[in-house]
């Protein structure tokens, strides 16, 4: 259909909103509360444009034949300016020292719309809520209500996308705020720390909890040997923080940067991923033979694991007992590697660089005691590099250290949705048939793409698998579990590349670019199956004996908590 935008005629398909149409032709419209995957609520009112002379929110207005849209009139700018002024009048003014000010949309728009004076009374000193503003109870992230602009995105994501409902809208009028039940600290709720609220928050009201100071401290401490492990997703995203295009593979530069910071060793979480696959594939084969519960769930996503523990504890036994790559790596680092370099584990410190904030909580689970000492998100590392004056784009390519730096293509695709499943099936297939099959097609894909189902024939047995993105979608699989044998669940849309610690902005377009880069990374590798990784084989030969051995079990496998039970006994004394 034909519509007019800013005086020019355009033709669009049916069913688009004004916002989507404008974005298609390259007109930026500011938004706070809009989320591309969820139903638009049109509450922030920032995206207003003139439609046939009247101000309408572009996110919720569908295109109609003959519409006259104006996005650049004084009327529109005035409305947006007033909106921003009202928000700034009720916002803690700490922009110069705020960590997220470079990612803060309020700051960005205030600049863009040249907000100089605020003609309104500054309300940010009149706190309408009685409870304390800041919640830093978890390891993963900090909530600061004094910087909240009440866009409600965190509540929407927690409730509609992830169906965890740790956050709700509480109060009314100016005291409306995203809150937990009874304003308890977030670590006392069912929050799984997926980080989707953090990455969608347009201001600094939600931000990862920084561990940068502690990391700098140990880097400067000569008594420690400090190693870094880098997750797959980080290498295809961190460049965005330094002006490089999304989906550029900056592994080499990243390694050099870490050495410049003072890390003694730079290793690859993908090594841990390969290890995970070896253990998990063997575990799956065992279960397929009747030794264990089916379907088997992946367990590398800590948000998914906590989700099962909180809401479906009766299915804890479906979870693979394997630790995540981060944790397996940590265990091996503090034992195998310590021995190799003749050091005591207490002299070793391990820092993970992750796209995820749930990894911060995972590293502190009681079962994992200090296998991983600190976790930095992609954003945190980028900030640290900037503060050190490291000009990322200009760095020379470096390479990983041995022996924990070698990885296969299967290890690299862990960062994208479907990658873990694919990696596992590659090994399962090869172990059982001795043939190398790299791709596994999906026969059924849901409309939003978040549930993909497929099956593969291996030695006369059909293995039915499913790949799920977002926890809200994951609830669907519990309706008919016996349809599947193996299920991969990633809490973040797109998989870990869309994680809560990734560079901002992270939208579906950028996520697709990052996914493409990881796939390219996989294709570039000479070894594309985890169990054919020579360093992995050496590890088993020298240390672990064989997959699922007693030693492997002790170091690389874990147990889970029935958190639902714990809550009920606390609430009702059962």
């Amino acid at each position: 259909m034909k519509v007019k935008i800013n005086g020019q005629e355009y033709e669009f398909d049916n069913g688009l909103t004004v916002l989507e149409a404008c974005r298609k032709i390259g007109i930026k419209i500011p938004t706070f509360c809009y989320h591309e995957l969820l139903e638009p609520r049109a509450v922030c009112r920032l995206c207003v444009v003139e439609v046939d002379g009247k101000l309408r929110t572009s996110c919720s207005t569908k295109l109609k034949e003959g519409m006259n849209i104006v996005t650049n009139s004084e009327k529109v700018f005035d409305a947006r300016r007033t909106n921003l002024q009202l928000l700034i009048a009720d916002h803690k003014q700490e922009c110069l020292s705020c960590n997220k000010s470079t990612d803060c949309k309020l700051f960005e728009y205030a600049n863009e719309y040249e907000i100089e004076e605020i003609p309104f009374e500054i309300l940010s000193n009149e706190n309408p809520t009685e409870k304390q503003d800041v919640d830093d109870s978890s390891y993963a992230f900090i909530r600061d209500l004094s910087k909240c602009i009440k866009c409600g995105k965190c509540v929407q994501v927690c409730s509609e996308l992830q169906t965890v409902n740790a956050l709700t809208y509480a109060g009314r009028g100016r005291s409306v705020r995203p809150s937990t039940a009874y304003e308890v600290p977030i670590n006392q709720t069912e929050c799984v720390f997926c980080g989707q609220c953090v990455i969608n928050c347009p201001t600094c009201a939600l931000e990862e909890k920084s561990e940068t100071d502690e990391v700098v401290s140990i880097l400067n401490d000569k008594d420690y040997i400090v190693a870094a492990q880098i997750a797959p997703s980080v290498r295809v995203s961190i460049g965005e923080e330094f002006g490089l295009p999304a989906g550029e593979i900056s592994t080499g530069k990243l390694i050099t940067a870490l050495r410049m910071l003072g890390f003694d060793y730079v290793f690859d979480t993908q090594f841990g991923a390969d290890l995970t696959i070896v253990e998990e594939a063997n575990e799956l084969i065992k279960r397929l033979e009747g030794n264990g519960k089916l379907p088997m769930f992946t367990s590398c996503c800590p948000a998914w694991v906590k989700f099962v523990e909180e809401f479906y504890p009766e299915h804890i036994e479906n979870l693979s007992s394997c630790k995540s790559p981060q944790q397996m790596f940590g265990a091996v680092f503090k034992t195998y590697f310590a021995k190799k370099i003749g050091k005591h584990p207490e002299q070793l410190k391990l820092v993970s660089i992750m796209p995820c904030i749930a990894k911060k909580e995972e590293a502190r689970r009681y079962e994992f005691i200090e296998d991983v000492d600190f976790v930095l998100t992609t954003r945190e590392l980028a900030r640290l590099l900037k503060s050190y004056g490291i000009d990322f784009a200009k760095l020379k390519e470096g390479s990983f250290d041995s022996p924990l730096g070698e990885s296969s293509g299967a290890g690299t695709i862990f960062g994208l949705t479907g990658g873990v499943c694919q990696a596992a099936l590659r090994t399962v297939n090869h172990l059982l048939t001795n043939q190398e099959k790299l791709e596994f097609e999906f026969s059924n894909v849901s409309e939003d793409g978040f549930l993909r189902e497929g099956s593969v024939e291996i030695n006369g047995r059909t293995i039915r698998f499913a790949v799920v993105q977002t926890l809200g979608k994951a609830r669907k699989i519990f309706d008919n579990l016996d349809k599947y044998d193996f299920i991969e669940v990633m809490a973040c849309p797109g998989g870990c590349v869309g994680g809560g610690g990734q560079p901002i902005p992270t939208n579906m377009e950028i996520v697709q670019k990052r996914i493409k880069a990881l796939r390219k990374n996989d294709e570039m590798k000479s070894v594309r199956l985890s169990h054919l990784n020579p360093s992995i084989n050496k590890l088993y030969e020298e240390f672990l004996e064989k997959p699922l051995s007693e030693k492997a079990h002790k170091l690389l496998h874990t147990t889970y908590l029935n958190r639902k039970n714990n809550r009920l006994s606390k609430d009702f004394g059962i």
Partner: protein
Amino acid sequence: MKYTLRICGATACRASDSLAVMDKLKQLIEERKQEFSDKGIDVEIKEVGCIGLCGKGPLMVVEPCSILYTNLKVKDVETIVDSLLNHRVAENLLYKRDNQSFEKINDVPYYKYQDRFLLRRCGVIEPLSLREYIENDGFKGLKRALELNPEEVINELLKSKLRGRGGAGFPTGLKWKFLRQAQSDVKFLVCNADEGDPGAFMDRSLLESDPFAVIEGMLIGAYATGAKKGFIYVREEYPLASQRIKQAIKILRENGYLGENIFNKVSFDIKVVEGAGAFVCGEETALIKSIEGKRGQPRVRPPYPAERGILGKPTNINNVKTYASVTLIFEKGAEFFANLGTENSGGTVVLCLSGDLEDTGIIEVKMGTPLKTVLYDIAGGSRSKKELKAVQIGGPLGGLVPKELFDIALDYDSLKEIGSMLGSGGLIALNQDDSILKLVSFFLDFLRLESCGQCTPCREGVVQLKKIIDRIINHNANYEDLDLLNKLSDYVKNNSLCGLGQGTPNVIESSLRFFINEYEQKISGPVIYTITDACIGCHVCAMNCPVQAIEGQPKEKHFIDQSKCIHCGKCFEVCKFNAITKD
């Protein structure tokens, strides 16, 4: 000789102990029953619904002569009983205006100038007597409607020119048409009895006094639109109304007027849902959320409720008076209803009068009646005998009508033309001493607390609007603030998500249009200081006044001589008892 005593048992009269009066009457008549039987006098006592002159309650009407008694107290019961026994009128209990007494209710000026159609059974029948309801034309409308087919019913409704009585004034026939056209086997009808407007209580009254009429209107609606289930959403501040309507539903179910196959033509049942205290739930989409058990936060429209409502199903929401009007329309005919009104809206308008008026309560007049008829002929003018300065209509989202425009016709369009609004029909009379700005500040306070808080313009904007108004009231503002007030008002009106935010600026704009002088007095005029009743007579202010403008006896309330006052504010500064106001 049979006397029937109709005593009002609706909420307002109850609050003045009308039930105690009724009990005492019953008791005394029982005690003296021999006297009554000797004289061949039969007395029936009926508790009826709202008789309408709430400000002079408790009220009673004695039939068959229709004598109205007002301001009844328990000690008056003896007088009443004596008057009955002697076939006399109790003079001291009659309604009086300007020293003249009136006996018959239809002669009382308050009632003489009214046109009571929607309210025809209120205060006449026992609210829950199905028999009385039917005897008084009950269900005539439904039967007539069922003789037509659904499309014809909607056409009749369009012909009647009925516009939604909840405030927006949207043609009801059109709304029903939309619901009829919606493709779904599940449709809902909702009666909005959330009446959150302070100053409006006619919905409460209707539900308490003539509940069957409201349900009959919904039945006609169910037939016309295809809805099989309905909700009546009553605010929790109306316990008696909620109880009555629930009982009414039960009675109708037991008698085959609700449920399956009513007259073999329609199936319909109703559930009463109580609100939990949120003005914003009067907004359609918020009301839907509330019925679904969620926070009453409005959502963006389109889609409209007729397309997607409760649980995603097509839903139609109408006000209590609208459904009662539907009943009237089919009882007496669409043309009759249309002729009661004006060119653009049929029927009558029900108003709740409060504020500085001699007579307050619920009244009904033809659409288009001049406001001054209501204020002076019906309500008797100012009770305090001061001059009436303005009238506020339509609740916090409504507007003002200044005294210069008191001959304006009461209908949707005439009021809209002057920037005001009929709204739900709550009317508050203000006299020359009432501060318009303080009223505006009060409304803004109400709205900022009732705002759901979702959208920035309303959540932040209303707070800032109130701050500006308060600055002006406290003589802390200049003409730039007036500009800012205008600009922000406009912003909130054009950018808010729902009617609450969009309507907030109405009263501001209205006050700027008609009472700019009050603004100017605050911006550039002197501060007026007044001593209130909180004064304990400590004399400190008088001792500090540089021009000796304050007088008073020790331990008694003091007074400021405004002709001597130089507005320095010293007294305000030194008063330790907050007994001096700054205007």
